């Protein structure tokens, strides 16, 4: 019974992602879109934290938001997804939790 958490706020100006990462169960997923993809900016501490997380949770990011922001190198364990895969991920988990 796993949850896919949807994040869209930048981790540098907002606490949503930090709060969300504190309450994950093993097997849950984290989907980054909008400014939340800035968490994958190469060289940042939060990016390293997300890489560590991938040992127990899936981390995925919306391709168009990565591309628009010029973030083109992802860690090997973090996948970039299109909208069809976004839909597929929502169907694959038991529920989604959007951090509005």
């Amino acid at each position, binding site marked *: 019974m796993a*949850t896919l958490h949807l994040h869209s706020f930048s981790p540098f100006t907002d*606490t949503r992602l930090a709060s969300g990462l504190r*309450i994950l169960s093993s097997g849950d997923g984290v989907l980054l879109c909008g400014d939340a993809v800035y968490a994958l900016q190469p060289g940042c501490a939060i990016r390293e934290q997300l890489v560590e997380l991938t040992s127990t949770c899936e981390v995925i990011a919306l391709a168009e938001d990565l591309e628009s922001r010029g973030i083109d190198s992802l860690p090997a364990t973090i996948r970039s997804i299109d909208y069809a895969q976004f839909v597929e991920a929502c169907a694959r988990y038991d529920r989604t*939790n959007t951090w509005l």
Partner: protein
Amino acid sequence: MKSMLIISRQSPWSGPTAREALDIALAGGAFDIPMAILFMDDGVFQLCAGQHAATLQQKDLTANLQALSLFGIDDLYVAQSSLAARAVQPVETLSVKRVSDSEIATLINRYDHTITL
């Protein structure tokens, strides 16, 4: 019936979000839908005593909180870590269960639907 957990993380004074989160819960309660609310982050400020809504020409949100049990919503939770970080206590008249971060992780996975406002 499918259950729903609402995670409320805005202070009552930051705009309509806190009230509109409660409205979702009350509407669900009116339809006998199993609802639960978790207060975390600045949402825990909704539970504090000594607030004076009239100062800001606002309606008192605590009245809505007291109405929750009338709508059959008794599953109220508050994040212990959020209380501790802000050094606040919930008012004693509200029956709210304190939960740790790892308990929250388990709690979310017990409901059919979840939303964080």
